[in-house]
């Protein structure tokens, strides 16, 4: 077997792999030996290619294919569904769909958005995985020529109080993972100087073996500075800027494209997790944005998964040209790297600038001012071949279509039954007050202030609405953040996230659709028109048909809801193989939504403003309890999760935006986890004033009416004297007058039934639940 790897007679490590005459078993073995994670069929395609070329491949070539053809890089299992359900969801405001999606902001400006996962590395090295997750998403947005202006982090862990003795062998405790991830986001995000303005933290047994760490970014640019992820003409120079290249992060994408087995964990720990350096990234962002603004670039792309091997191939292929690279010009962190290691290293903080020859000196000068290393390492050439040399020796020469194209599969799916009815409810609990308190201090609902305040959500001094809204010192969760990208315009961007693991596990179509419905509701709640979403899809092993069915159905739900609500999906990310010894991850679509605020002076926050103001419930409440926090509190599994009524949501969104533009809305909050009771409590806590609601008679059991998580609903406070204007704006929308702001309690009643919590007695449990769970006792 050793004879299959033949060192070429050069004074550095370079092997030829005897592939052409290899048997299927040999092929499988080679894929394993080299850590390629390619199947036998895929290896046969490689064999066939080199057979026709009449030679054996080098290790550089095989490693390149392992990267380029990984699930992570080429979406081979997911693309067929994305093409069917997601890619067609576009609007005229979509400008580009590259490393990040690019959308129109106004006539002269655009914004970029993208979200992606960093689940596998964060599960193994939580601090390092989270830091490089941020680093990666910043580069995706930067790669469009845009200045990053906001970060978001949807996080999902196992229960913080999970008993150590029950933890399956080899798994890390949620408390450790949570602490490491939050600290990583804090230490990298705060240093790099981009505000972390939104996110969510969810806890469920389904994340015990596979945490879901997603990170999203929004960027902003003059349209004239936007870049494409491609070369433009032959002669364009590849300038590698930023961090040096080392052995960290080798095979990250291949480990991310297999289950998180004990062996994979070992691989990650041995060096597949990259090392982040925010103090290289911060000046790198300046240097790249300045080069883009000055019009010095022909193209741009970030080095992420697969390193140079992916970036060079994709830039050239997208530009319809070939590429040449001299690997020995790449600046290294350490001596002794083999050419293949340089070529696939995922060392962080690197960008590839495509520069016409006459601008190279100017670009290098800009980088030098910021102390950012920058080196020309190759060029675009006519033709369709990628050729890589190391010390004069050609180490890679492949056709780009073959190399970068990658396989695409339609793998089988197996549908599972979805619950269609409400799960059987126990008798209505006698003491609803104590259940409200229990839900308010449950980790999914409790205040996330402990996390939020460790992140700098204010840097860049343009955060207009924060993640916590209300009276200073008492603020509670808002629905969306708003940032103001231009000093001299009132137009702004609203940013929100949603994720729906618990619903998706029960009914993936509804889970996907609800994620869109919820993120749009969040945006509307602050006065923004939902404009674009980007999705991160965290699912299990696509080679297992039932797992793939979850994925397909969730994608179908997302596509359908986005289309109906009129938002574009210009970018997205898929994370598969989230499986460990504890089984598959809770299937989780996470969505970053961006809305346009026409005039931020009309923005609305979630905190109640004034005693005496009227409150209205917008939308219709049904018995939607599957996956709800109420069921969780009662220990009930199953049941149908909330359905969507997209036309109704759309009409309600339009009505609310009309009302807000007219100035009649004082506060607004979306109803989601914990339903009406939790929304009312959060609004009251943020405004530090009570609320008295009376529900109209209905067939729904009172506890269901209070805790149901039906989609398409908001609780709205109107300004005194503006009620008529509100009612006019809401013509044609289903809503109900519910009561008034006032007192010191959260109180909801119907007939003789009531649920109540005094602000003074719910604030502390709600605020301190997470810090109490996090502290190591």
């Amino acid at each position, binding site marked *: 077997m050793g004879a299959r790897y033949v060192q070429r007679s050069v004074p550095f490590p370079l092997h030829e792999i005897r592939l052409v005459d290899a048997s299927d078993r040999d092929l499988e073995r080679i894929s394993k030996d080299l850590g390629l994670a390619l199947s036998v069929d895929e290896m046969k395609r490689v064999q066939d290619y080199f057979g026709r070329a009449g030679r054996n491949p080098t290790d550089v070539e095989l490693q390149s294919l392992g990267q380029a053809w990984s699930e992570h890089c080429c979406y081979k299992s997911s693309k067929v569904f994305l093409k069917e359900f997601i890619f067609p969801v576009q609007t005229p405001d979509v400008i580009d769909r590259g490393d990040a999606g690019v959308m129109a902001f106004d006539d002269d400006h655009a914004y970029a958005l993208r979200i992606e996962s960093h689940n596998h590395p964060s599960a193994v090295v939580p601090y390092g995985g989270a830091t490089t997750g941020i680093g990666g998403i910043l580069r995706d947005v930067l790669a469009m020529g845009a200045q990053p202006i906001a970060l978001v982090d949807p996080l999902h862990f196992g229960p913080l109080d999970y008993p150590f003795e029950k933890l399956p062998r080899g798994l890390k405790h949620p408390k450790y993972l949570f602490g490491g991830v939050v600290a990583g986001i804090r230490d990298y995000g705060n240093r790099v100087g981009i505000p972390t303005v939104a996110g969510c933290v969810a806890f469920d047994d389904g994340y015990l073996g596979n945490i879901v760490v997603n990170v999203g970014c929004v960027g902003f640019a003059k349209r004239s500075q936007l870049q494409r992820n491609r070369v433009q003409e032959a002669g364009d120079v590849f300038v590698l800027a930023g961090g040096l290249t080392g052995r960290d992060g080798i095979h990250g994408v291949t480990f991310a494209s297999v289950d998180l087995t004990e062996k994979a964990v070992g691989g990650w720990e041995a060096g597949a997790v990259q090392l982040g350096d925010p103090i290289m990234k911060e*000046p790198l962002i300046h240097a790249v944005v300045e080069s883009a603004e000055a019009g010095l670039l022909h193209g741009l792309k970030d080095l992420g998964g697969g390193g140079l091997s992916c970036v060079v191939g994709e830039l050239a292929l997208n530009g319809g040209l070939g590429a040449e690279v001299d690997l020995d010009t790449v600046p290294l962190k350490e001596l002794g790297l083999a050419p293949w290691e340089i070529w696939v290293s995922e060392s962080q903080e690197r960008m590839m600038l495509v520069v016409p020859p006459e601008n190279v000196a100017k670009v290098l000068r800009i980088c030098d001012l910021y102390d950012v290393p920058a080196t020309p390492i190759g060029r675009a050439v006519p033709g369709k071949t990628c050729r890589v040399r190391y010390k004069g020796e050609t180490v890679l020469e492949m056709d780009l279509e073959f190399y970068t194209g990658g396989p695409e599969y339609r793998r089988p799916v197996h549908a599972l039954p979805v619950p269609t009815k409400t799960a059987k409810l126990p008798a209505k609990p006698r003491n609803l007050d104590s259940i409200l308190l229990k839900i308010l201090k449950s980790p999914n609902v409790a205040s996330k202030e402990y996390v939020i305040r*460790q992140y*700098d959500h204010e840097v860049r001094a343009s955060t207009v609405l924060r993640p916590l809204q209300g009276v200073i010192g008492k603020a509670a969760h808002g629905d969306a953040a708003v940032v103001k990208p231009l000093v001299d315009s009132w137009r702004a961007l609203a940013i929100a996230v949603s994720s729906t693991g618990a619903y998706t596990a029960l009914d993936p179509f509804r889970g996907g659709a609800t994620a869109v419905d919820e993120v749009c509701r969040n945006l509307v709640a602050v006065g923004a028109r939902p404009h674009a979403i980007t999705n991160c899809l965290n699912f299990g092993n696509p080679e297992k048909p039932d797992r793939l069915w979850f994925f397909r159905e969730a994608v179908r739900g997302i596509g359908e809801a986005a289309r109906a609500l009129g938002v574009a999906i210009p970018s997205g990310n898929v994370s598969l193989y989230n499986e460990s010894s504890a089984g598959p991850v809770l299937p989780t679509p996470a969505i970053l939504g961006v809305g346009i605020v026409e005039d931020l002076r009309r923005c609305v926050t979630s905190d109640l403003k004034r005693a005496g103001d009227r409150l209205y419930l917008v939308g219709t409440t049904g018995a939607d309890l599957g996956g709800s926090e109420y069921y969780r509190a009662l220990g009930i599994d199953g049941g149908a999760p909330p359905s969507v009524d997209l036309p109704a949501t759309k009409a309600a969104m339009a009505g609310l935006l009309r009302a807000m533009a007219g100035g009649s809305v004082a506060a607004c909050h979306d109803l989601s986890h914990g339903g009406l009771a939790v929304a009312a409590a959060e609004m009251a806590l943020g405004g530090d004033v009570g609320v008295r609601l009376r529900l109209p008679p209905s067939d729904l059991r009172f506890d269901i009416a209070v805790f149901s998580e039906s989609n398409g609903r908001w609780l709205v406070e109107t300004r005194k004297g503006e009620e008529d204007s509100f009612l006019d704006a809401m013509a044609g929308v289903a809503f109900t007058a519910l009561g008034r702001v006032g007192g010191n309690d959260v109180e909801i009643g119907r007939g003789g039934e009531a649920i109540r919590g005094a602000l003074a007695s719910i604030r502390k449990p709600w605020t301190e639940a997470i810090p109490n769970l996090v502290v190591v006792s």
Partner: protein
Amino acid sequence: MKVSDVRVGVLFIEGTNCEDESVAYFRALGARAEKVHLKQLTGDVPKAMARKLEDYDILMIPGGFAAGDYIRAGAIFAARLKWKLSKDLTDFVEAGKPVFGVCNGFQVLVEAGLLPGLGGTMTETPEAVLAINDSGHYECRPTLLKQVSRGGNAFVSKVPRGRVLKVIAAHAEGKILFPREREKKVLKELLENDQVVFRYVDDRGRYAGYPWCPSGATYNIAALSNPAGNVFGIQPHPERCFFAYLHPDWTREGGPGGLGDGSAIFQSALSYVTRKF
């Protein structure tokens, strides 16, 4: 001097991350502000890009994590400043020109020995330290700052004594400490010299503990000046409340229009320069 003639240099190195907004907001008040890399002041750049410190009327050191702050907040930036720019800085300060440090900039000024400056314009070793917050981690939250000085500095002419400003704090190391054995004496001296400028208060104006004072700073100190009053360091970020729409509670109080609380500090510095020079 007119405001439009005031030249503001906003100094940065790698990891400084509040320079762009600081420049933008000085410009919003009509000043001629630009960001300037430390290398441009030390001559380590091509000639066309070089600048002289004396060409500026105000020097600002903005917030961020200069050089990563991996040693102690502000320590590396301060060491680089002292290494090549000691004389220029001393001349600048002794000429009475304002030096304005925000957050990490405050930490840099303390590490550089420019604040509190009891032992001279720029002391050999630091006289104080901005230590890790009592909570042990970064704190990003709105704070209320009471102007407690008698006005003997360049940064509060537009902020009457006793007025409380809303300003955003965002730091991991904001707890000012003085040598323990001399703490009382130092504090007394600072007060006599009118060097304590802002103190953290709660929503009822009391000198309260966490979270109103996010770090546990000695004597609730949020901002200090040097004895001459032209070097000023403030831990929370006035630029993050520069406009009313940046106030943390503008949807409840005051509305979104016009300048915000933080702008008064920028305006005071400009007014000081236009009156003096």
